[in-house]
């Protein structure tokens, strides 16, 4: 068991947004975390990363309880988040973006290194010297994805990675995630609204509604089920 959430509740101020979230993720597994807008998906990922205090329950990573572990140390243990919307350093060039993140997160024997980024997204190679913030929305999202996957974390939390990407890239990117998971045993939690694309690579589907898990099963079970009215 790589990541285990047990009865987690979290929220903002006095408001509890997610509650009783229990979830177990094995190494190499891709879990699609789906749900309507405002269901609490982002909140769940924030809780896992330690960006939000838990109100109840516990999270364990690799068998270690995460309660007293700060964000940076969770990242060091192998958790990584692709955040919603602001996943790049806009004032640095593309190359500097990659370099800075690689310096702290790519070990000597890590697999997905600087060169792989430019292989995955050739357009970034062309734009190495461009200020990242001046690229188009989609190009920025490619860079954000690259930063998140640099150094192959053990568990990658992806918050709507396909936003702003043209269809060809969505597919390429998902395949890449899939491939890295398969070859390196990276686990991924994939929050997506592009349900079809997510189901295509997911091993498991978890569906949230109003802050609670209402479905947990295989993609096929999900397709056959009646949970879709929640969206």
């Amino acid at each position, binding site marked *: 068991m790589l990541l285990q959430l047990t009865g987690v509740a979290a929220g903002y101020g006095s408001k509890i947004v997610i509650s009783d979230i229990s979830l177990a993720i094995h190494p190499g597994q891709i879990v699609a975390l789906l749900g309507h807008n405002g269901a609490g998906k982002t909140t769940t990922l924030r809780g896992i990363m330690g960006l939000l205090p838990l109100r109840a329950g516990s999270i364990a990573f690799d068998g270690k309880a995460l309660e007293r572990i700060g964000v940076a140390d969770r*990242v060091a243990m192998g958790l990584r988040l692709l955040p919603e919307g602001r996943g790049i*350093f806009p004032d640095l060039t593309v190359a500097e973006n990659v*370099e*800075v993140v690689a310096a*702290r*997160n790519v070990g000597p024997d890590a697999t997905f290194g600087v060169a792989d980024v430019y292989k995955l997204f050739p357009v970034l190679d062309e734009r190495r010297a461009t200020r990242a913030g*001046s690229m188009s929305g989609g190009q920025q999202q490619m860079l954000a994805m690259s930063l998140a996957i640099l150094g192959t974390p053990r568990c990658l939390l992806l918050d709507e990675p396909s936003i702003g990407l043209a269809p060809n890239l969505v597919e390429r990117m998902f395949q890449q995630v899939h491939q890295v998971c398969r070859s390196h045993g990276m686990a991924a939690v994939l929050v997506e609204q592009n349900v079809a694309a997510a189901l295509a690579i997911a091993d498991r589907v978890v569906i949230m509604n109003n802050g609670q898990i209402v479905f947990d099963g295989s993609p096929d079970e999900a397709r056959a089920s009646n949970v879709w009215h929640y969206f």
Partner: protein
Amino acid sequence: MVWLQLLVNGLVTGAALGVVAISFALIYATTKIFHVAHAGVYTLAGYLAWSLASRGMPDLVSLLVAILCCTVVGALIQHQLYARLERRRATHLVVLIASLGALAVIQNVIAATYSSNILQFPVPWGSRVETFGSVRLTWTQILTVVLSVAAYAGTMWFAHRTILGKQIRAVASNPFLAEITRLRPQRIYVIVVAIGSAIVALPGVLVPLDLGLQPYGGVTPLLTATIAMIAGGVGSITGAFVLAVGIAVLQNLSLLVIPGEWSIGVTFFIFVIFMLFRPTGLFAKAR
């Protein structure tokens, strides 16, 4: 040939001011904090060096110890004050006011310890004069230029060539992402304020060596440096340095055409006009 001496004097003053500006620029661009307490650190450097020098310490040792102490004080301000404020989600305006409070504390600790009198360094070699053609410079002035330019070059190299420098700029650009990619923004902030404080200790000692120490004397240089930083384009070290030199030269040369009582007002008014034509500063990168 008055203009030549004025120009050279402007360059000397400007070089020292430029170092204040780059140190402030480094801090401001990264932390977004209007760190006015920096003026206190600047002043503190001079007084510390003075204390040691007047107790017979070698001049170089006094300078180095002053730099070291300022580094610590800077780090403490960030770690004990600004970081706490950030955790309480204070706005920039609030942090500015807290920084004003910190400035008041430092200045008045100095005033209470050393009195408000202008103090002079017991450094006889400093006022020795060298003549270059019609230009006359003291040793202190020469030293100021040399060390300031070195500090500028060093900072440039640090920010753009070292990985720590790039990490600092990354944190400045997106602190949230920095947090989740293990760049540890809070640690970087402490480092940055510490480095900035170390840098500012240099002019903090050199300028009083020439012009004397006053407990409330750090504010004017800091304000001028701040203006230089902004006019140069926030985030640009070269911009901050060049504009600081520009202000000082302009202030010196302006005396040739306008009376001194108007020179400060007019100099900065020229900057107002300048800002209207370059609204994002001289060296700012296109957004």
